[in-house]
């Protein structure tokens, strides 16, 4: 048996609201399946399961707010050892899956807005299809219940602000930060990128931000202690490089979900993943692993035209890399002064875990990697 618990989706998350189950008792689940939706101060998150088996029992009903760690459901795991598996019981074959409920697109949308499961509504349209009118009747007949969850809750900005406040206060109170800055010549990177983009179809073009993320991810292989988590009294290095990307939300606030294994993804894949992540961060639908997995954060205020940003480490991470805008500056190349595109890279890091010397190695590694962009 495995327990599926309310996950911790942010450094200061203490409780979450279960909004909906995506799987029902008896359904098969495999590792990575999204089985529940949880509302947090970061909006609606799709929560994945880490066990494979059959969803045995649901313990928490939609609408309930429970502390992190609360068991939400029990999963009967598949036997991991063939020899230990019990002999196959002579059971009747599973019933065929029920036909998908016939619900009009409009009724489905409306049901989601008012928080009704459209498959529970009696359909009166042609062939028993559930129509808008049926959902409206069901909504009107519903007993008003304070516990009824909104189906797609808007992100609560005041709550998000409180969360940011708590995490950043904790970071500044507990983490002894040191700060480094380094200006990097971007001539080769921007020239290569222009050529590369001319070669690519319009939809596959790269933004320079993705080069910066990849350079940081590869640079971390050389300074692994910055790709880690602080566990109260010791540091725990991470095997994978999961770069949290700071994404500002349109109404205010921000999230920094992970680009998994950013050091191993080709630039095109990384670009697509970044686009997808940005869109989902802004519309809802981030996955729990994306919020809990980052091992370092990269933030950029380049789009705003800012030249340098010194971030605050997001616990339990131990470092954050910042990039400003690419600006043209007088620069000395081979003894001559000429205009050159440059970017300021910064590092804020936890001095309990690393020293400025090691931090400097990361920024110079990023610089070196950006001088051969074709290898990124």
């Amino acid at each position: 048996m495995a327990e599926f618990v309310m996950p911790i989706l942010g450094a200061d998350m203490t409780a979450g609201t279960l909004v909906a189950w995506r799987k029902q008792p008896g359904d098969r689940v495999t590792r990575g399946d999204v089985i529940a939706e949880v509302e947090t101060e970061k909006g609606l998150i799709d929560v994945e399961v880490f066990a494979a088996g059959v969803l045995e029992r649901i313990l928490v009903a939609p609408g309930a707010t429970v502390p992190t760690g609360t068991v939400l459901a029990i999963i009967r795991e598949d036997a991991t050892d063939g020899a230990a598996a019990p002999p196959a019981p002579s059971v009747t074959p599973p019933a065929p899956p029920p036909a998908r409920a016939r619900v009009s697109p409009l009724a489905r949308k409306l049901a989601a807005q008012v928080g009704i499961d459209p498959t529970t509504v009696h359909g009166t349209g042609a062939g028993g299809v559930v129509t808008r009118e049926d959902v409206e009747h069901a909504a009107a007949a519903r007993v008003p219940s304070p516990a009824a969850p909104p189906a797609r809750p808007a992100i609560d900005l005041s709550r998000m602000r409180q969360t940011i406040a708590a995490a950043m206060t904790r970071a500044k109170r507990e983490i002894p930060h040191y700060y480094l800055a380094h200006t990097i010549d971007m001539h080769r990177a921007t020239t290569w990128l222009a050529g590369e983009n001319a070669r690519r179809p319009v939809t596959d073009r790269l933004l320079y931000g993705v080069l910066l993320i990849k350079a940081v991810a590869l640079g971390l292989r050389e300074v692994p202690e910055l790709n880690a988590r602080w566990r109260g009294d010791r540091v725990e290095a991470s095997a994978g490089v999961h770069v949290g990307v700071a994404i500002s939300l349109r109404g205010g606030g921000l999230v920094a979900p992970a680009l998994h294994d950013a050091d191993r993804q080709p630039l095109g894949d990384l670009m697509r993943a970044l686009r997808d992540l940005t869109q989902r961060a802004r519309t809802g639908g981030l996955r729990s692993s994306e919020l809990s997995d980052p091992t370092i954060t990269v933030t950029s205020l380049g789009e705003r035209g800012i030249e340098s940003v010194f971030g605050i480490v997001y616990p339990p991470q131990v470092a954050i890399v910042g990039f400003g805008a690419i600006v043209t500056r007088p620069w000395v190349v081979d003894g001559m002064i000429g205009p050159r595109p440059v970017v300021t890279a910064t590092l804020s890091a936890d001095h309990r875990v690393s020293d400025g010397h090691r931090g400097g190695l990361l920024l110079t590694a990023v610089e070196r990697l950006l001088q051969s962009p074709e290898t990124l």
Partner: protein
Amino acid sequence: MKKMTYREAARSALRDALRGDPRVFLMGEDVGRYGGAFAVSHGLLDEFGPDRVRDTPLSESTFVGAGIGAALGGMRPIVEVMTVNFSLLALDQIVNNAATLRHMSGGQFSVPLVVRMATGGGRQLAAQHSHSLEGWYAHIPGIKVVTPATAADARGLLLAALRDPDPVFVFEHAFLYPSEGEVDEAAGPAEIGRALVRRPGRDLTVVTYGGCLPKALEAADTLATDGIETEVIDLRTLRPLDTATILASVAKTHRALVVDEGWRTGSFAAEVMARIVEGGFYDLDAPVQRVCSAEVPLPYAKHMEDAALPQAATIAAAAHALLRRDG
């Protein structure tokens, strides 16, 4: 405002164009001495003379090609092709020359050509004179396709076609020529690419054009007696298609029925349905439906021709099915 027939309204636009611009001339089969196969150009030869109202041989490819050449040379030709069935002989000139020259010359040339033709059935003219092939033309980038359904549009859209710098194809529905409507002869050109709500309603949207508009409006009258309020949209232009007006209506009514005299398979109705599904899927409360012509060469016998074409009764029946409730 003046009451006139669709035929007179088209003639009034032709006369204004010939009077107002010395570059305009009309040519086609029987447009001069005979006054036009559908009598649209009746009297124009006497008023403007044989240089500007020119009879041509039965050679669609040749005279449409000559029209393209004249347009390239700075004239404003109006070419009448008797029916859309005959226009197929000129399809090469239309697809490979008229539609392409602006693009292939990098914008150095334009083809300000107007081609008028009759389309549609209902007059017992049999299979070679009665088909509705305007949907095929709407497939072609580089030309515009307008389908007036009222006397006012027969004038207004023809004037708009003459103003346009690119080839415009005007499909006049043969059944509509004797129909009457109010026309403001002081009004200028209509807007190409703009659909109109001909009747507002909240229960379903009927999207149609050309010869099916009066049938759709008649069906809407019948449906109103059953308490069903039908919104009727007249597309007026098939290319460029005014998707926004369609989607705004579907967002209001949540049900759509497309009526098109073309054959069902690969019909223009199919394109409209695709636009609704692409842009309005989450507004739909029922599957989009269509009423099209039966998939046969149009019969000559009256009872069979009537059965093959969309009619007010079949439109009303389809609307009822779309609104059916089983609960």
